[in-house]
């Protein structure tokens, strides 16, 4: 059925054509916040932000934005990146243009949306201060932060000596029935991470993992919470920033940085081309990439691209972690296959 819009695959055929030889289609010039922009944004009065950042972080960011710009309220739609993708596709197929800004932990579909024209290029002056690879080449999205997809374990119930150190350790039969994991059909973090792990270890890894009687949850925020509750001993995956937050709240959770490497999951924000509140949307993008926005994101365990942002105490410095990267366009191409194979292996 076609009423949900063009399929991802169809779009990507187009992406492949123009993404490989990076044609000189320069990003627009960086824009700074002007009184006129603020006035126009206030006149619009609200901005709809569909975000995959977890609820507390997204709410905090929204509140701070509202405090900085009185008269603008943020309508928050928090769900997994994959779920938001589905929602926007549905809405656009029915000619509903509700969303202004999308924050996604799956860059794959931001690549698709660049290709089909759903997003618009916009580069904030603040974003120019971020590390260069935070900005999409043509300005169609800007990375807010990056997180990692990592395992974790309950430090009260598992001795450090017994804890898993590598992805492959999760296949040990001693963890059978004692693990929880999030779903790549819901979470962009897990989608991106699953792609990277299958590249590194092959699908056999997940096929074997599926035989471990895993408790299947949806959001990448959830596994570390279940582990802290003692429902399971080990989180087979999950978002690093979420596990870090559980830790900070006093939850007995220890993050594992696997010896094979930790998948890097960038989280990026994009402006919708048909945003009903375009000025408020732009203002929100400015705020996210500003020092203030970056500090909030970092406080919640996101790894900032802005040099000089203070990392929260207790989070392992990036230089000490072996990182594994993915090309967003490749993730987008593999997404459908990942969902299918994952469901076949895990049953849900």
């Amino acid at each position, binding site marked *: 059925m076609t009423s949900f819009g063009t399929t991802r695959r169809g779009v990507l055929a187009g992406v492949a054509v123009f993404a490989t030889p990076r044609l000189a289609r320069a990003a627009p010039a960086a824009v700074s916040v002007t009184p006129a922009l603020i006035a126009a944004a206030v006149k619009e009065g609200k901005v709809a932000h569909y975000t995959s950042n977890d609820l507390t972080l997204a709410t905090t960011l929204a509140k701070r934005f509202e405090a900085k710009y009185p008269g603008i309220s943020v309508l928050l739609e928090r769900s*997994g990146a994959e779920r938001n993708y589905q929602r926007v596709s549905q809405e656009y197929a029915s000619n509903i243009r509700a969303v202004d800004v999308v924050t996604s932990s799956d860059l794959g579909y931001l690549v698709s949306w660049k290709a089909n024209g759903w997003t618009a290029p916009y580069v904030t002056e603040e974003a120019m201060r971020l590390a260069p690879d935070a900005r999409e080449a043509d300005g169609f999205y800007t990375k807010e932060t990056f997180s990692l997809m990592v395992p974790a374990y309950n430090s009260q119930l598992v001795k450090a000596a017994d804890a898993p150190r590598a992805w492959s350790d999760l296949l040990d039969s001693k963890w059978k029935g004692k693990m929880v994991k999030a779903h790549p059909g819901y979470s962009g973090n897990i989608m991106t991470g699953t792609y990277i792990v299958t590249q590194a270890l092959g699908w056999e890894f997940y096929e074997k993992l599926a035989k471990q009687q895993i408790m299947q949850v949806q959001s990448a*925020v959830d596994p570390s919470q*279940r582990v802290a509750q003692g429902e399971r001993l080990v989180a087979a995956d999950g978002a690093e920033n979420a596990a870090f937050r559980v830790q900070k709240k006093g939850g007995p959770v220890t993050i594992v940085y696997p010896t094979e490497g930790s998948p890097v999951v960038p989280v990026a924000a994009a402006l919708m081309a048909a945003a009903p509140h375009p000025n408020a949307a732009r203002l929100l993008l400015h705020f996210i990439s500003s020092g203030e926005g970056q500090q909030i994101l970092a406080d919640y365990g996101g790894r900032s691209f802005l040099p000089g942002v203070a990392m929260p105490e207790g989070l392992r410095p990036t230089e000490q972690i072996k990182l594994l990267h993915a090309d967003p366009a490749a993730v987008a191409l593999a997404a459908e296959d990942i969902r299918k194979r994952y469901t076949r292996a895990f049953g849900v």
Partner: protein
Amino acid sequence: MSASSPEAAPASGRGLPGWFDPSPVFFGLIALLLAFVVLLPFGWLALFSLTDEKGAFSMENFSELGDPSLFLGPFVTTLGIALGVGVLACGVALPLAWLVSRTNVPFRRTLRGLIMTSFITPPFIGAVAWVLLAAPNSGLINQYYRALTGAGQFDRLVNIFSAEGIVFVMASYAFPYVFVLAANTLDRMPYDLEEASAILGGGRWHTLRRVTFPMVLPALLAGFLIAFLQAMTQFGTPAILALPAGFHVLTTKIWSLFQFPPRTHLAAACAIPMLFVTILLLRGEKFLLGRRGFTMIGGKAGAPQLTNLGLWRWPALTMALLVIVVTVLLPNLILIRASMLRTVSDAWTLDTITWDNVRLVFGLTHTRATLENTLITGVAAATAGTAFSVLVAYLTARRAVPGHRFLAFLATAPAAVPGIVLGVALFIGYTRPPFQLYGTLWILLLAFLTIEMPPAYQQMQAAFRGLNPELEDASRILGAGRLKSLTSIVAPLLKSSVAATWCFVFIGTIRELSATILLTTSNTKLVSVLIYDLNENGELGAIAVLGLVLMAVTAVVVVAANRLANVGQMAPGR
């Protein structure tokens, strides 16, 4: 002047001429409207199941149903669960209904009120509460079990993430439906038949079995049907309990087919067998009831006499209380507990108590709007749905229009369509001209009306079945039209059933999740969807807060509705 007195009005000849009865036109319109509301999504469903992605005719979808992992497995699981729920719900509800309605068990009124409390808990909130109580490792029940018995770290008493767990939770929130139907019927049942049986030498057990039970049977079957169909079409509970365990029921499978890229045609084909199951069940009900007459309210009715249980009153009370503790008290206590804790696994001490969850919930940008949306759609759907079901039940019970059988079918048919499929059908049907309703509350209202029609209709129909037509016949012989006899004879007699139906529908909309989840947009979000979002996010503390608020609001509305109905009943009849 007596011209203004009500008795004089018809005689004065004002308004329509005496021979003109507007009823047929009005009833015809109702029938048409129902046909439209029900047939549109069904049309889409049929069309989609028989076509491929390009819109060409194809049986491909149905041939794919043979795939055990796609359809057969989830289908069998679903039927097993639904059967379990139907039997368990009836097994619990019938004795309870009998106890509070026909025996001298202590605190009968309080018991009845408490059972009704379980009725206002949406199953998906109940499911979350039971995760907190009975998750295999972190569940409180299992923790106490290990502490008390000294069992090992991974030993468990109960595991809610299982088919049995799902049956248990679904039955916990389905049995009040059966209970209400059975208790209402028992309340209205005249004593004289039972008395006759006793006079003729029938023992207490014999009377119960041969007289009381057959009279409750229609309500019981209707109750079983509701419990079964609810279980078959429910989405929230299995999504919360089955997916973590790594298996699907049919609704969650269908829902997964809508994940990107959506396979709507296949999903439509998956829903068709549910339709057949429902039709079979409805036929079965009719077959079992046969042609036996169950008219219970005649011109006069004796007050029911209570069975004296003697010393058995106390075990009976204990049993009733146990049901209430398990279905109402425990889940609500655990929600209150979770709402106050930073992490749900914390011990409950002064140090760990926090307002964080309350702050989180009311700090969300959507909370107020979702609560408002939920109330608006709930009240609107309940009012419109009740009016509609009274009319349709009347038309079919009294065979007032040609084709009333078809009308009955239309009113019960939506029960066979999982909310999630209806959601998609409505989504497709109302996202394009001439009816562009997606993104508004209207599409939700329409969904609720369609979904709640079967239970509302079932209930009103059971009520009509118990109402002897001789009363209306008398009014019609005296010159009243059907509409007039409906409003001035039938409606007052059925006031409590009407109020109950209103509450059924209202609560039904609060409990609905499967269609809602596809039909809401960020601006038309309902609390049920917000709770589901929070669950996927693992925010159990926030769910506890929101769930308690939702239940409190529901309780207030339901109590107010019942007050209103009772006030009307108590008004002097002159």
